């Protein structure tokens, strides 16, 4: 067991390193950074000076090592604004956290409801309608759904603010600003999760333990609640963990942007538009870290729960 965990962690570590190297190389291909930093009417000499100052004249691997060192010692300053990127991420983090957890709770709750309903009424009209709805849900890009919400519920009806984020110090405003982003983000997941849950429940109804439970004289509802649903929740919860990992890493770029929440996702979009290498690196590391870490945890948990996996 310990060997498996160590192997998984080592592999995760190498994946992380590779992710940062690839990102760095990709960004190096976006043109002469020194010239970009030097601005519009810089002389050759000034560009050289800036290149020297930021270490951009050094071989690429030296630049990479220096950048990584700066990031992990908390000294990552964005080239364009000279702001400590870690501080910036910290500042934007409450919005990301609020968005991810709020949406996470909504989509988990609703997909359990819809998934169970679809499984119970499998093959009947309720199931068919829910299938079509979940297909529609996963087909709406968040920037479009967000725009529709903002236009009709925000602009036309005036029920919700038109984007932006308010800190928890004003709980009512915080809530009002986040309702639409939560719904927008949740709809993407509800469709998928409820489909997964539906088929897991259906698979489980044929398992022996369910038959045994029926044989013991439990009602359908009791079997569902006490046995089937409980077991079917395992894959859902692990999916949830992984998706939360991504969202906490700032992966909700589109939702974040369309609602102007100014969370880590929007920071990423801004940084990429400005080609701000340091900021992009920090966010990529953050998200990749969250994803790799959580998937390693999920793998290990599975291995603990199901010894067969270790052999694979």
């Amino acid at each position: 067991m310990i060997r498996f965990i160590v192997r998984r962690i080592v592999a995760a570590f190498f994946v992380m390193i590779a992710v940062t190297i690839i990102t760095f190389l990709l960004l190096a291909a976006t043109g002469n950074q020194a010239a970009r930093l030097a601005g519009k009417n810089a002389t050759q000499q000034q560009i050289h000076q800036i290149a020297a100052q930021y270490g951009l004249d050094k071989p690429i691997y030296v630049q990479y090592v220096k950048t990584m060192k700066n990031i992990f010692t908390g000294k990552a300053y964005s080239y364009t604004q000279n702001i400590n990127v870690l501080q910036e991420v910290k500042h934007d983090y409450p919005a990301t956290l609020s968005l991810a957890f709020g949406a996470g709770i909504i989509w988990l709750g609703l997909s359990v409801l819809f998934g169970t309903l679809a499984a119970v009424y499998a093959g009947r009209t309720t199931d068919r309608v829910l299938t079509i709805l979940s297909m529609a849900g996963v087909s709406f890009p968040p920037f479009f759904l967000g725009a529709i919400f903002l236009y009709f519920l925000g602009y036309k009806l005036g029920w919700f603010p038109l984007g932006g984020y308010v800190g928890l110090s004003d709980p009512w405003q915080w809530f009002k600003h986040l309702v639409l982003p939560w719904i927008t983000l949740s709809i993407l997941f509800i469709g998928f999760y409820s489909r997964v849950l539906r088929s897991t429940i259906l698979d489980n109804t044929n398992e022996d333990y369910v038959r045994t439970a029926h044989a013991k004289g439990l009602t359908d509802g009791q079997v569902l609640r006490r046995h089937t649903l409980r077991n079917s929740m395992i894959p859902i919860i692990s999916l949830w963990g992984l998706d939360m990992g991504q969202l906490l890493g700032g992966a909700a770029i589109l939702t974040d942007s369309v609602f102007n929440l100014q969370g880590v996702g929007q920071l990423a979009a801004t940084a990429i538009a400005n080609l701000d290498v340091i900021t992009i690196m920090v966010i990529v590391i953050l998200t990749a870290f969250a994803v790799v870490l959580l998937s390693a945890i999920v793998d290990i948990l599975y291995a603990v729960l199901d010894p067969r996996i270790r052999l694979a």
Partner: protein
Amino acid sequence: MAAADTAGTSFSDAVSGSYDSDAQDLPPGVGPWKLAWRRLRRNKVALFFGFIFVLLVVVCLLAPVYAHDIAHTSPNAEAGLTATVKVGGKVKPVVNSIGIPIGPTWHAKYFFGADINGRDTAVRLLYGGRNSLEIGAVATIITMVLATFFGVLAGFYRGWWDAVITRFADVIWAYPAVLLGITLGTVFATGGIGPIHGTFLLAPAIVVGIVYIPYVLKPVRAQVLQLREREFIDAARQQGLSSTQIMFRELLPNISSTIVVFMPLILANAILLEAGLSYLGAGVQPPNPSWGTMIAEGLQPLPAAFSNVLVPGFMLVIAVMSVNIFGDGVRDALDPRAKVRIAR
């Protein structure tokens, strides 16, 4: 299909390892494909949406005909800013003095209104659809070909091949899809790598194609790992078939249903991701339209011309949704036990 906002971590997780599709429960004499087709034919909803998608493709392919013969303009038409159009007997400017474009006229000219540059929205919608669908299709081909190739390679040879290929897949997979997409897209759009430059229409297809590789590669590899232990592979080896022959003649046909099941899923994802990238400016580069760029451009004169957001947005949703529902039907038909789940 949350791929449009986060990556599909769970996508691969939901499919990997759990796929075992040989149609074991076939009645004798009927091939698996024929049987699947019979099942699909019974699924009227899936067929209906499949038809809708085909219709969309045809309509978008007819874009030049519509532009030339009905709207009498072109997707990057000249003089839209200064043009006027007759609506209900009144002559109105296509774009007014503070830059607000005209809304839907419901006539041949400017049927869905104009964009801020005074270009016919309906015409751009069709040309944009052509680009969006074309990029989606090419991206799907890239993903499927590369993922199948490397997946088979990894599963068949195992050892070093497997280690290297899976690690690479892990690296791509550790990136949330949109983040990797915009990073790659921006690199192409700004610096460009070799001949792949931003103005190259298919650059986003390459980006999207790469992003989704691991989501197909992992299940393909898992299935090949299972298959290679079967007797028929041993038999083939004893007959003296080379590894290449085994892979092409024996393995490939056996994983083809997996590939077919994944195709619509990846297509739907690819169209959505392209739209997301274009929305963020890292996808299709102007002046080429795509549904994503049109939504982004449509947001600019808001709230005056919301139709410019609604029209391309709903086209996008209808296209993706019809692929999804049709794909769901295909999956049900090929794999009634529903082990491969809808991708995100």
